[in-house]
């Protein structure tokens, strides 16, 4: 696949090669399966290694009707969820999996065949009759269960959280997600790359630009094409505008959970002002309808953008300073939701979450895309791993984003903004992007007529939801909402 360093393996070689990769300092990022031929699925594992080194990729075909692989979850725990997803959507089993229950499809969902099998073309929604779900056994005197959701208080996305608790203390928290599973990866099947972008923008609304960017870059990688310089600078500016409104939202939302009302109002007002800037300069508050494989759909005039940001910047800086000097707010954040570095690494934490737990990685810096290679990208890092560290990382990234936008505007080249991209039948490409919430990878496979055969979307919220419960165990009810807000998770991206 263009963009990755491949190794083709037989099923039996997998565990050993995976161990060797890990020992060499690599970290696996995700796994998925697809059907190059209807009866021969292939499972693909993607990892990352050192800065500027290509992404290692392991590919393993299942021949002769074989539908089972050894589970790698014991070697690298973050693969646990990906293996369960493959099991649900592609019908491949993983022997020795520590928790082999369904994940993405709820118990009681009965598609006629694995949904990602290309022969499965359902006319309507699959049959479903809700069944009890698999739960961990928790025993002890006075342990109570509290199911919360899927329709939760406030305007929130749908998810169910089951708490096992004693008094105020939470023993165990078991999120049940994927209520919003829309089968999006299936819906890419058969689309042209042009229409694929429209769908990619709708994977996660608040990451519209980042997902569309990763998708476009994957198509461009498949076609081995290079985009005009002006387009690559515009992509940097727009990606940072997306980061800006998102981070401001989470600062405001964090104030909501610590009941700092004016702080909430100010954070969300600043978010609104950023969205209005998006609308004014691009036509879309969510930066949609701008990207196309090969560059931008149209050129943008960004005259006046710098001035608008220069006016907003002091308000943002001032606001962050006030937050950092408010004891009542800080008291609630410090030591809340601790995520140790090793857990963050093993379970696959991504983005600001991992950087707040001492892992200094950022795709904009480690594997520059668009025009990021031309800029100094600051990668802030904190060691504490608590809700406060996560909020500080967001603040640092806000400052860095504004700087990046100024510098990209100053150096914005003139010229064309798009080029013809032609992906050959059967070609494949990997695209990546560091979104507000963490790393996004898109893998695209084209069919024999140049349409999309398979698109795999690795979203940061899928990674961070897997990590999140580890910070909740042995904490207390009062801190839960603060902790969840500090993670900045979306359901749409996770569930897809």
């Amino acid at each position: 696949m263009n963009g990755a360093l491949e190794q083709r393996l037989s099923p039996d070689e997998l565990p050993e090669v995976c161990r060797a990769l890990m020992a060499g300092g690599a970290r696996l990022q995700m796994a998925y399966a697809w059907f190059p031929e209807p009866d021969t699925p292939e499972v693909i594992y993607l990892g990352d290694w050192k800065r500027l080194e290509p992404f290692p990729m392991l590919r393993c075909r299942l021949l002769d009707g074989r539908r089972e692989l050894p589970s790698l979850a014991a070697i690298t725990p973050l693969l646990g969820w990906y293996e369960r997803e493959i099991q649900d959507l592609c019908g491949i089993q993983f022997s020795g999996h520590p928790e082999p229950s369904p994940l993405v499809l709820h118990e009681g969902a009965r598609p006629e065949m694995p949904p990602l099998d290309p022969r499965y073309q359902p006319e309507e929604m699959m049959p479903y009759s809700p069944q009890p779900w698999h739960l961990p056994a928790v025993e002890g005197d006075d342990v109570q269960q509290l199911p919360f959701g899927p329709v939760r208080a406030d305007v929130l996305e749908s998810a169910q959280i089951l708490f096992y608790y004693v008094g105020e203390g939470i023993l165990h928290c078991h999120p049940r997600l994927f209520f919003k599973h829309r089968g999006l990866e299936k819906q890419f099947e058969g689309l042209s790359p042009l229409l694929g972008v429209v769908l990619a923008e709708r994977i996660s609304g608040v990451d519209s630009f980042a997902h569309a960017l990763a998708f476009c870059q994957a198509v461009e990688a498949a076609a081995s094409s290079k985009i005009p310089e002006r387009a690559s600078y515009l992509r940097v500016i727009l990606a940072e505008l997306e980061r800006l409104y998102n981070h401001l939202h989470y600062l405001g939302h964090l104030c909501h959970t610590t009941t700092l009302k004016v702080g909430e109002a100010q954070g969300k007002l600043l978010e609104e002002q950023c969205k209005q800037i998006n609308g004014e300069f691009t036509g879309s508050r969510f930066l949609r309808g701008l990207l196309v494989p090969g560059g931008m759909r149209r050129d943008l005039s960004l005259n006046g953008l710098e001035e608008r940001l220069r006016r907003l910047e002091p308000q943002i800086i001032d606001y962050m300073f006030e937050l950092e000097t408010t004891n009542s707010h800080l008291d609630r954040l410090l030591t809340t939701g601790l995520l140790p570095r090793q857990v963050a690494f093993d379970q696959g934490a991504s983005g600001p979450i991992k950087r707040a737990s001492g892992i200094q990685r950022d795709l904009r810096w480690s594997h520059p895309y668009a025009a990021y290679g031309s800029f100094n990208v600051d990668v802030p890092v904190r060691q504490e791993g608590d809700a406060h560290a996560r909020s500080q990382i967001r603040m640092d990234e806000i400052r860095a984003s504004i700087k990046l936008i100024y510098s990209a505007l100053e150096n914005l080249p003139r010229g064309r903004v798009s080029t013809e991209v032609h992906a050959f039948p059967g070609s494949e490409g990997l695209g990546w992007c560091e979104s507000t919430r963490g790393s996004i990878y898109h893998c695209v496979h084209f069919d024999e007529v140049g349409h999309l055969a398979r698109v795999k979307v690795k979203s940061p919220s899928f990674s961070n939801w897997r990590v999140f419960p580890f910070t909740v165990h042995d904490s207390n009810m009062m801190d839960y909402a603060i902790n969840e807000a500090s993670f900045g998770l979306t359901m749409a991206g996770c569930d897809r």
Partner: protein
Amino acid sequence: MPVWTLYGLRRGVATNPWPDGGQVTQRGVQGMPRFHSEQCKEGCRVCADVCLPGAIRIIENGRGERLTLDYGKCVACQMCTEFCPEDAMEKSGDWAFAVSKRADLIWDEALTSLPAQELTQKIHTAFGRSLHVRHVDAGSCNGCESELQALNNPYYNLHRLGIFFTPSPRFADLLLVMGTVTYAMKEALLETYNAMPEPRWVMAMGTCAVSGGAVGGGYACGRGVEEFLPVDIYVPGCPPNPTAMIQALLLLLNRTPQRVQGGHFAD
């Protein structure tokens, strides 16, 4: 340590007074495309080919091919406006698309000559009552939630209009549904509706909730709320911006006129 009360006071009033005076400030935000049928060329199907949700279709009706346009499926991706060789599809700032009859979102040739004034005459006077809203995310992309959350920010300050979000469906007048309705959310959606006292209303917010939009169908998604519940107000948009959401809520309360009829937008 900051005194947040003073901090807030120093910032002054941030709220935009619309609709009680003030400008509608969604400057630059692109809405649904406007269709100029007189410019449309027969035999051309460029716009239909680039329309992911199938809002534009070419149908054969015996006397040749005809274009149909359903704004209830439109996600305002602007593809048709950029690809139409005849400029029959025009970019616009028309986003106040809330309607009470689904059929009003389907473009109707016969209405072409209807003067806009006729629509605006239909203004109903406010009978000013408050409204409590229970929101349900039935499988959205979170874009709609992001804009709905924005209604509580100081700029839109929804409370000033007597409209509130309530945590319990038992206190709700309106069920505000977003998303296509996924297989796993159907049950929870119906339970929420059944827990509401009568009279109750349902609003389908966002193109996904109106028709399934760009992601409806497939093994996990429905094609909008209508399949499962009676809908009172349809609000296409991907997502509808916060002002469009306010307009829809006020339309339900008869405090603002409907702007769209037969797929035509009245300025």
